[in-house]
């Protein structure tokens, strides 16, 4: 089989990336989003170095619901744990859930969208009907129903791929309920791509369907997938936060949603403990906002109407 990918020279590729970055970073939103994101990623990768090991009810030392002070920068919660400690450790869990769920959602969405767009016919019809189901079904409600059922079936004990099963379930459920949007966009782009001449060329030289999809169509889909992926992350963070807020999270591993849920149940709002509700809330808001900003900037940068059609 002939390798038929257009090979850029290294210098040409570097120039292309540079050009992309220049255009991308010219969006103010993208800069803000990137800075926030890098900050939270650093926080999430080394929580133990920043704030020490996760505090639990057992090793909590602080007083109850102390306002922010020098000792506790973000105050304490209702059992005396340092809120900063919880939020930093929560970052790891929230971001892991959001990113992995997005990966699942992108893989499923791209596969379904590309298959259905490329093959057309009854494959397209059936796959799109399934997509429609997930599309019209509010994914949060679906997740709300699926999560307890899956937890019931799988149980909470042990480890699955290094995660507690309850976290794993949330990742899978969010991933499986938020792919339909990606699938739709990928399909429409595939429909237009497969009519291009370079696909015909690939077919003439004998590439298999799978080869054409992976080698020729997929690389051309990356902009759309990347832009939408950033938006899916934002959605995933929201869903994770909401599911945990409703008590479906793991109470032993605090994500931001679990923290908000604990704060609400402790009556933090009416007791004036703004730091307890505010800290995880602002974090969830900032991260999802920065993903939205980055997604929008990517979308603008890749927008086909603003670049020369090859």
């Amino acid at each position, binding site marked *: 089989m002939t390798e038929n990918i257009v090979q850029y020279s290294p210098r040409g590729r570097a120039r292309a990336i540079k050009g992309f970055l220049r255009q991308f970073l010219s969006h103010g939103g993208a800069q803000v989003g990137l800075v926030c994101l890098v900050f939270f990623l650093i926080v999430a990768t080394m929580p133990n170095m920043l704030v020490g090991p996760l505090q*639990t*009810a*057992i090793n*909590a030392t602080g007083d*109850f*619901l102390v306002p922010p002070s020098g000792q506790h920068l973000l105050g304490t919660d*209702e*059992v*005396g744990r340092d809120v900063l400690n919880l939020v930093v450790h929560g970052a790891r869990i929230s971001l892991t859930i959001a990113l992995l769920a997005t990966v699942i959602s992108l893989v499923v969405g791209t596969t379904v969208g590309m298959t259905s767009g490329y093959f057309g016919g009854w494959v397209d019809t059936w796959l799109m009907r399934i997509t429609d189901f997930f599309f019209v079904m509010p994914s949060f409600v679906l997740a709300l129903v699926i999560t*307890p059922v899956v*937890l019931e079936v799988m*149980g*909470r*004990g*042990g480890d699955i791929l290094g995660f*507690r*099963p*309850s976290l794993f379930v949330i990742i899978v459920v969010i991933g499986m309920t938020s792919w339909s949007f990606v699938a739709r966009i990928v399909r429409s782009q595939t429909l237009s791509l497969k009519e291009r001449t370079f696909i015909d060329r690939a077919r003439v030289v004998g590439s298999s369907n799978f080869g054409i999809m992976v080698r020729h169509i997929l690389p051309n889909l990356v902009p759309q997938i990347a832009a939408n992926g950033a938006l899916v992350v934002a959605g995933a963070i929201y869903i994770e936060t909401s599911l945990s807020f409703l*008590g*479906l999270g*793991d*109470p*032993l591993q605090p994500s931001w949603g679990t923290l908000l849920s*604990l704060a*609400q*149940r*402790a*009556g*933090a*709002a*009416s*007791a*004036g*403990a703004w730091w307890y509700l505010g800290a995880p809330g602002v974090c969830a808001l900032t991260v999802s906002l920065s993903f939205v900003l980055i997604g929008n900037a990517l979308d603008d940068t890749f927008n086909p109407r603003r670049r020369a059609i090859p």
Partner: protein
Amino acid sequence: MLKLPLSRRVIVKALLLGSAAPWVITSRGFAATSCEDHIVRIASVAAPDTMNPFATWSSFWPLAFTYDFLVGVDAQRYSDRKGFAKEWSVADDNLTWTFKIWPGMKWSDGQPATARDAAFTYEYLRDSVGKPEELNVGWNNTSGLENVESIKALDDETLQIVTKIPTRWPLDNWTMIVPAHVWKNISYKDARGSFLNAPPLIGTGPMIVAEFQPGQFVRYSSNQYFRAGQPAAAGMIEQLFSSADSIAQGLKSGSLDYGAGLTAAQYADLSNDPDIAVGESPIEQRNFLAFNTSSEKGAGSTKALQDPAFRDAIGYAIDQMAIVKRALRGHAAPGVGLVMPVSTDFYSDLSDIRRHFDLAEAGRRLDAAGYRDNDGDGVREDKEGNSFQLELITGPTSGTIEMPIAAVQLIAGWLGQIGIPVSVTQLDSGALKARYADPTNGGGGWDLLVGSDWPSPAPRDLLNLGSSKVSGTRNRSYWSNEKFDKILAELDVTVDLKKSQQLVDRAARLIYAEAPYIILCYPFLLEARRKDCFDSWGTKDAVSQWGYFPLDRLRPHNG
């Protein structure tokens, strides 16, 4: 025309101001005047569904202010809180009970309220026994009436109840006495369901339900025919909220006089307010850790749960003091046995057999019982050689104070430290009930349960947690023990208080040693009231949880 944008802006500003006006008017600065109408404003996190006491369990609060119990809990505890009966006695045979009804008492519509109404209420229930429409679905129900031989009104002021066996049921039943002239025309089918008993109700309590909007509020008017004279408060409004946040806000802003079921954080916040008096009222609730002791269908993940030695060892790994201090911020009494301290007649601190918190001791006892960590991975194995991984389920129980999740974190942490990893599943109250239901009804399969219940202080109810007859409803651990059941059977035919105490103590010790439950704590009900509108609230409990005290005696402040 050029000026149009400006005038539009003015209009928008005026609209904004106008929409803010109701806020300003209801804010704290203007709220002080609300005392003038002498209406008590209370709030609860509750969802009463109907005003028919035969058809629901969930309307206790509106109905308890309107109807009287014959005797009930408060009348046995406090000499100044009485129900439908003024005094009572039992004959030497322990079977014949005589109740003296208040002379000249009237229903809120002015008709005389007599022993005949009380006799009617019990007869009404008893006649339904065995019929398809048996009245067993609500607060007024038939349980216990099977032991009653006869109920007679000897005259307007004397009620006589003769029981088949010696039982304290005539005192310890929570049947609300309803007027015969209303209920004699209601069929059992209607009483069980469709009859709504629409307000205004007719009762003998101080506050009569005058209007009921489900999910919003209950309005009461004061009973002009109340036996101790019309209450000084002109009426009452009970707001129905879905979370304690609204109650705390209402108390702060002055729109509520009393609220209960606060969280520790709200309690601490409100205690700083000079206009508000906070209180912690000891109640009958107990929070516990239950083991799934079932050995057949619905059994847990390991046979160790059925081994008393294993459960006993776990008992040494639970620090009740830490749970009270850390998770409940001191608003609870540390757990010991089945009986809670507020039930002074039966409480014992079991000091001679009490377990103490000592993780090393727990480890030693697990080693001795044969649950060692043989492969050195930090997790113990059971006798079949499987590593422990216990599933703990928890969730709120409707009608009880919610247990802070920190308590579960503590328990999971301690058990992890002695080599027994625990995973936690939070459920809502309905799902939790389905999980701990009897295995024949689809429950079971869990290992540990952290839950709570709020029994009545009758000795039988105190011990129901271990009764094999109510396995899967009251008895969450599926534990059954012949000796324990025998003591319960004996208790059922005991009237004498001293003998009851001995039996309760024997049963409490037995179940403590077998440890199907580790009692964690007895939480206090956190309540708060404003000082500016009304006086003469209770001292220990500002508002009783078992009756209408103190609404019969509240007085307007300085009035």
